[in-house]
């Protein structure tokens, strides 16, 4: 019996208001999953939002084009929003959770008006590289396991960055902040559902206020 799942199987398990965490071990395995997720969104009448850190704006646009997405007209009609982390998550070195929520709501409202749902991806390595991990955890828990927002959201975590910046211990609390955890490697994809943990325990463990 094969214990890994196909990307297609995993994608089909992600539903509206799902808050999902993705751990990837290489840029290639990340691309394989995320671009499929975004492409599937567009195919199913959903707008897509990509908050990036690992690569450049142009590289992402090119990759999306390469998998057959018509990037330019969709960007012009604001069906595709590609933003750098410092325009969305960490503006001028600060993490303002209310402001981030405001950005999500505004983008989703725009989609909603056009009758679109949303597939959103946010790369989180910026929080680790810039020492904003506590703020990230507050943000993740503020989103809740089941989102209050009408979208399917994937928070993409670079496993190497998490470990190399010394935050291995936050992996489990991050998983618990989400409804589903997806692990991708060149060898396949698996999805696991985290156990239920009281938010207060997480607060005590991490000394953060959710």
């Amino acid at each position: 019996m094969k214990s890994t799942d196909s990307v297609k199987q995993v994608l089909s398990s992600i539903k509206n208001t799902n808050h999902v965490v993705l751990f990837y071990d290489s840029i290639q395995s990340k691309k394989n999953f995320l671009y499929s997720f975004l492409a599937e969104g567009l195919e199913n009448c959903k707008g897509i939002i990509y908050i990036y850190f690992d690569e450049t704006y142009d590289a992402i646009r090119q990759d999306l084009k390469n998998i057959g997405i018509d990037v330019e007209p969709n960007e012009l009609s604001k069906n595709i929003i590609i933003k750098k982390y410092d325009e969305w998550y960490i503006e001028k070195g600060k993490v303002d959770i209310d402001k981030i929520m405001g950005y999500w709501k505004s983008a989703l409202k725009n989609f909603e008006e056009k009758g679109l749902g949303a597939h959103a991806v946010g790369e989180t390595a910026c929080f680790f590289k810039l020492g904003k991990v506590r703020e990230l955890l507050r943000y993740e828990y503020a989103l809740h396991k089941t989102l209050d927002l009408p979208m399917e959201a994937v928070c993409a975590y670079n496993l190497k960055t998490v470990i190399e910046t010394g935050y291995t211990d936050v992996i489990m609390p991050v998983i618990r902040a989400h409804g589903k955890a997806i692990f991708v490697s060149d060898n396949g994809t698996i999805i696991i559902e985290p156990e239920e943990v009281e938010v207060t325990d997480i607060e005590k463990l991490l000394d953060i206020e959710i």
Partner: protein
Amino acid sequence: MLTQKLVDYGLDTHEAEIYVFLSSIGPAPARVIARKFNFNRMKAYRTLKSLEKKGLIQSTISRPIKFVASPLEAVINRQLTETKMQLSNMEKNQSNIIEEWKKIIKTNSQQLEEPRFRIYQGRQEIYDLMLQMCNRASKNIYLVTTVNDLNRLSYMGLEDQLKACLKKNIRIRILTDIQKDTISEVEAYNTSANVRHLKLPTPIRSLIIDEKEALTTTSMEESINFTTQSDVGLWTTASNFVVAMRIFYEAVWDLSTDSDARIQYLETGILPTTLQTIHDIEEGYSKIREMVKQSTNKLDILVNDLRSITLSYFDLEEAAKKGVKVRLLTHVDEFNLDDISMLSKIVQIKESFTEFNLELVFKDGKELLRIYPLSETGRNIVWSNILPHVETLGIVYEEYWKRGIELESQIKWIQQKNLMNTLKQSLLKMGENAIEKILQNEKIIDSVGKEHVFELIITKRVSSQPLCINIVTEKDVFNKILVLGANRNELNNFKLVLLSWESFKAEEKRLAELYRIQLISESNISKITEKILQL
């Protein structure tokens, strides 16, 4: 006796005896004198010539020459006259001589600096000397003595003498052992001197004046008797000795407690707010034991090796029995595992994550003792009850405590580590033909040049991929899989194995498969060995 009286007039004994002899027998040659007094002829002549020169005898013009005593009255009169004249001349020249001497000592001051030492015996004599010394002071008076001694010295007028010195801007310091029943005696000196408390284990007294002279006790008793001879002191002007005493005094002064703070403590029990440096490690340990003993609420301890601060199980048990909440951050290893297990019944213990050699003890959140790592200046220890200082380091402790490893996990890890040694032996025995080499706690280099440490690295004779094995515990297995998984692509040339003495969960198995990590869970060394040999 006449001979003796003549000696008093300035003759030596032989001269006096010869004069008396010649007076009684009349003129006599040198030969007779020599025989009478058993001298050789030369010595007899020399003595007779000396007497002749002094006018006490005269020689006759005869052969052999004879000597005859002069009348004594004339001799004495002449002697008196000469002495009077000499005295008169001395008086007349007194001022001139002193002036000339002063000129010499100005140009040749070393003559004055020749060190002088003197032993003084008897309390009265010592007290007189102390008052004279204070009188000679121009800059500093440093005194260390008992309160009883200060009390006795008050009767001798030391207090007034010090007040006078203070008016001349002389700095006066007194170190003494202030106790509850001696507060009033100390307060009497507080107006004329800067008084500080120093615990004196035995009666001692030292007085240092400027950098010029010092008196130190060699024996001293504490009775009120002013005429006792059991009070003995060494006085000196030897500059090296005086300077050395002054340096010691100043060092001790820095370690002493302000008298007001000491009196406040004795009257109210409230310790003065201070930061105290302790240079002696034994004294530091003794302070820790005192803190543990006095704690009423909580004790927080960070120490690399509990044995190093000589704190025993019984000290901590005493505290715990009083209801004191004790937290201990330390290193737990196979050598102290038994002690730690016993201690964990009364104390909350965590494995300290830090290797930094810093040791901290907090008492009731109000006092702190910090032992700094060994440096060129020795081990510095600081005790403090300055609240911001205690609270700041308290935050550091809390952070360390949060990051400490639960004792249960640490014990499990140690037990597994021990089993790893057994496993290595078993592999060497059972896999003698299949295994080329086994390395323990060694590193490998991945394809991008990064180092990874594994507990066992096994190279087999037939396989090109070495087995890299780490042990995992129930609690850290998930993270350990992810740590290896994150680097899996760079470790493609190795077979990665995680070993547990307990079974893995289904999601852990799936995750391990995703990252191509082999999991072995067995509780039997032989079975583990077999499984490893099959990989």
